[in-house]
């Protein structure tokens, strides 16, 4: 490797340190107007009437829009097109957009918002899953499956009840993971304008320009070929800019109507309402174990709090179950899930999408199993690891797995064996692992087209321009793109110009989500560069009078492997190739391999590869205050191959930071107002000051270890690194606290008051545990039954082929409440 694996300044590094990176709100266009949104002050209400006359006549106001202007709904998933750019009649959370004012400046627009009069009919607030189950009415959405249950899922891979009945031990635990939000420091912004031909361009802080492009065309009813979406570099995404946003539709509509550029930038409070963050999930996990510590089966039930709209929720809910099988061998597995609607900002994908919650439960439960069986928690994990190149019970194909080495490394580096159960009271260590996708196997909307495309353009000056729809959100997607092209062509990454995230000029890439960019864009980039390399080699070989296969591309030169004096500069060789073949360009594309699962629901979970991480957390707990200090974290990540170690380490440490912050303090929570004021449910903390996150003073030292076990499905073997390393952190913190003071905190965040309460319980001789104590009765349907590969299955369902079926009595409730 000439470029890959060597620490380097990222290709866009200079722009980022000079303030030149152009974020969406940095765009200023001539004649630009400004937009603000009127948002619902009620968590659940019907709109009887909106009077916009006074706002329209306010000096400086150019346009006022309401739900009437947007007849077409949208939603990121084809099955949940349940949002309108502006709510026409029903608002479902505090912050749901109702109207928009476009004015000469933000100040004027804000003044005019106050002049809009809305007559609401207040509806009962559904505040949490318990209330959603108990109150099928009033319905938050008419299309939900059963009352306010948005979606029910149930799958069984082998007879789990039988497996548990035959197991020497069965562990049953309840866990709760509170919701939290992405908190990117950049607030979402969008600018819309018409070009000289009257076609629409939208610049936006989005991770998914392709999906925004499709939605804009549909919602605004304009041809998709007349819409261009440019994803500006994001000032942090973390999944928070993965959804199609109301304000993107509305600002685009305003530009279309006015023929002038219009900008909107959300304020911080609005970013909290936009949300689409981590779903709060209640979990019940029953796991069978042999006396030797081998897992025999698991039955996982999840109850997922979705908030007011679908967003990615159907996929998020699948993800609370899909990846339980890719880390430890589970011969049989059953998974029931329900997502409910509540009157809160919609939840969606945040770093780890749906998998941190069950991972938290699974890794704490393993700690409990290890203790009961008298095994070392690290050894227990090693004993149960999934084998490389195997199928799981739910038909996921695992390729390489570097997790054994990850565990071995963190155990050794942290001096685990001399610390676990051996540190003085108040200090402890905890271990946990994680696994994540390297790109979702299927696109969000069904199609057989490539999921990533790359185009390359070369000219006689030696200039290399690479075009790709992938989106730079800080993770270094441009750097990965440049590095891979540079590696193939033997040039310096700084010689390459990246044009990315622009649906008007770049080939489609589905976006920066599901950790898909390195693998999918990377493979497409190899495909395109290899095609051009072959042409250049042929032309250069002709000039040098050698065989093309004997040429080496390195250091900006093309030379004979055995005799480097026979050589051409890259630019000279490109010139000869241009002479021989005409203008030089190539395209490459990537479509993931077809997954082996054939049952309905098998589309969530498959990936070209899985990344693995292991983490040891050291924690100190003050028994008088419950205060938790984390002095050090060791983390090893199975990255396949490192493209740029500087960036890879940054992704790992950033994941550790975010995971630790979630573990100790982050929570998106709500409170009811005093009943005499209102029945409303309001956001408790929509500000950066009150929503606690770790600062530089709280951040412990992190020791990062990258394990390289190249995966054949990945470009040069490189797996993802942006999400996986977050997963083991939260349970490792919980396990470390148990080792330190002997209390189990089975819910997140783990705050000092919870620790203190558990210590009091311990002192009273009671069960020293804080966490959920009951799981409500959820009408999970009959499962789709699929036999695991080792029980004669072929990947098809043997029962419940179409989808999980509700029993007749359940259907009755459903129809009576419709």
């Amino acid at each position, binding site marked *: 490797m000439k470029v890959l694996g060597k620490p380097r*300044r*990222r290709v*866009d*590094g*200079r*722009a*980022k*340190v*000079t*303030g*030149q*990176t*152009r*974020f969406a*709100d*940095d765009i*200023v266009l001539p004649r630009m107007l400004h937009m603000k949104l009127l948002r619902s002050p009620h968590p659940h209400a019907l709109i009887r009437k909106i009077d916009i006359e006074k706002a329209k006549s306010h000096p400086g106001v150019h346009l006022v829009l309401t739900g009437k202007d947007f007849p077409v709904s949208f939603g990121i998933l084809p099955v949940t097109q349940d949002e309108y750019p502006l709510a026409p009649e029903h608002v479902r959370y505090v912050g749901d957009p109702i109207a928009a004012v476009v004015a000469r400046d933000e*100040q004027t627009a804000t003044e005019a918002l106050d002049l809009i009069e809305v007559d609401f009919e207040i509806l009962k607030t559904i505040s949490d899953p318990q209330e959603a189950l108990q109150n099928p009415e009033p319905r938050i959405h008419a299309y939900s499956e059963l009352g306010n249950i948005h979606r029910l899922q149930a799958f069984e891979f082998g007879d789990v009840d039988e497996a548990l009945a035959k197991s020497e031990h069965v562990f049953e635990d309840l866990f709760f993971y509170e919701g939290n939000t*992405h*908190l*990117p*420091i*950049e*607030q979402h912004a969008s600018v819309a304008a018409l070009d000289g031909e009257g076609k629409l361009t939208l610049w936006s802080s989005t991770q998914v320009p392709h999906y925004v492009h499709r939605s804009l065309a549909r919602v605004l009813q304009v041809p998709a070929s007349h819409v261009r979406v440019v994803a500006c*570099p*994001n*000032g*942090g*995404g*973390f999944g928070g800019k993965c959804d199609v946003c109301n304000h993107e539709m509305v600002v685009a509509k305003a530009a279309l109507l006015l023929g002038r550029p219009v900008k909107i930038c959300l*304020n*911080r409070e609005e970013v909290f309402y936009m949300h689409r963050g981590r779903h709060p999930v209640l979990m019940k996990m029953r796991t069978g174990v042999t006396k030797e510590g081998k897992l025999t089966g698991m039955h996982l039930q999840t109850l997922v709090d979705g908030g007011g709209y679908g967003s990615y929720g159907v996929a998020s809910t699948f993800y609370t179950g899909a990846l339980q099988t890719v880390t430890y061998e589970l011969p049989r597995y059953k998974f029931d899930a329900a997502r409910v609607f509540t009157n809160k900002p919609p939840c969606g994908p945040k770093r780890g999408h749906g998998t941190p919650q069950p991972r938290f439960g699974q890794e704490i439960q393993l700690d409990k199993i290890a203790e009961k069986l008298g095994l070392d928690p690290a050894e227990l994990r090693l004993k149960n690891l999934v084998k490389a190149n195997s199928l799981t019970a739910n038909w996921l194909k695992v390729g390489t797995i570097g997790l054994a080495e990850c565990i071995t490394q963190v155990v050794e580096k942290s001096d685990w064996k001399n610390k676990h159960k051996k540190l003085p009271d108040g200090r402890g260590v905890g271990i946990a692992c994680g696994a994540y996708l390297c790109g979702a196997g299927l696109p969000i909307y069904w199609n057989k087209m490539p999921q990533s495309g790359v185009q390359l353009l070369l000219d006689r000056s030696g200039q290399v321009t690479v075009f790709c729809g992938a989106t730079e*959100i*800080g*993770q*270094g997607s441009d750097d990965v793109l440049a590095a891979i092209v540079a590696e193939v062509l033997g040039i310096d990454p700084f010689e390459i110009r990246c044009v990315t995230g622009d649906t008007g000029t770049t080939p489609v890439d589905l976006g920066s989500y599901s950790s898909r960019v390195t693998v999918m864009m990377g493979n497409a980039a190899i495909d395109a560069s290899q095609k051009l390399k072959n042409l250049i080699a042929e032309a250069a070989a002709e000039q040098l009078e050698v065989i093309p296969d004997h040429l080496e591309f390195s250091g900006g030169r093309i030379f004979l492997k055995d005799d480097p004096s026979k050589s051409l500069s890259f630019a000279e060789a490109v010139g000869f190739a241009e002479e021989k073949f005409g203008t030089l360009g190539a395209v490459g594309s990537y479509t993931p391999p077809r997954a082996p699962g054939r049952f309905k629901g098998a589309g969530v979970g498959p990936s070209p590869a899985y990344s693995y991480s292991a983490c040891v957390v050291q924690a100190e707990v003050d028994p008088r205050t419950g205060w938790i200090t984390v002095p050090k974290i060791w983390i090893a990540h199975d990255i396949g191959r490192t493209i740029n170690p*500087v*960036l890879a*380490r*940054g992704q790992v*440490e*950033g*994941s*550790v*930071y*975010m995971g630790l912050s979630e573990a100790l303090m982050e929570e998106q929570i709500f409170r009811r107002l005093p009943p005499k004021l209102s029945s409303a449910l309001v956001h408790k903390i929509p*500000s*950066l*000051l009150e929503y606690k*996150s770790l*600062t*530089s*003073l709280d*951040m412990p*030292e*992190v020791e990062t270890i990258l394990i390289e076990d190249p995966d054949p499905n990945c470009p040069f073997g490189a797996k993802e690194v942006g999400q996986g390393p977050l997963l083991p952190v939260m349970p490792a913190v919980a396990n470390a606290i148990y080792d330190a003071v002997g209390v189990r905190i089975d819910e997140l965040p783990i705050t000092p008051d919870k620790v203190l309460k558990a210590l009091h319980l311990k002192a009273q001789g009671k069960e020293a545990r804080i966490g959920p104590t009951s799981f409500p009765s959820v009408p999970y349907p009959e499962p789709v039954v699929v036999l695991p590969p080792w029980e004669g299955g072929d990947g098809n369902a043997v029962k419940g082929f179409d989808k999980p079926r509700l029993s007749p009595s359940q259907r009755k409730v459903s129809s009576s409440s419709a």
Partner: protein
Amino acid sequence: MRRNVHHNLTVNGEALEVSFAPYKTLLEVLREDLALTGTKHGCELGECGACAVLIDGEPQLSCLVLAVECEGRAVETVEGMGKGAALHPLQAAFADLGAAQCGYCTPGILLTAKALLEKENAPSRERIKEAISGNLCRCTGYQQIFEAIEEASRRMNPQRQEDR
């Protein structure tokens, strides 16, 4: 009708005449009236540190300062950090060592760190942590930022390098 005020500001060593609405914060005037969009905003309430600039050499949150208060004071933004096209050692170290991921909190942290390094040649890790504790970063986990500030202080003070 709101009337603009007319002020002389010194930004990045340049004397500027600028006309703006008197209620505007320094952040707004920098970004909207002077096209210095390198200064970012994350809350406009003094919570995140993204908008930090130097006023007379001290780090200040430009979202909490009215522009009318800045007449006669030296304002420095990220655009003024380098010498011409050459990067300031802090900028170079941030770019080289991964201290800027998305780059959004970066200008505020760079200026806060510059003020620190102008007061202290070789601040300890603890001093660095304290100095930037008002600047939130959601990407890096801070470690590469600490390292970049330390590296810049070594590059700026060869003395320190010999000490180590």
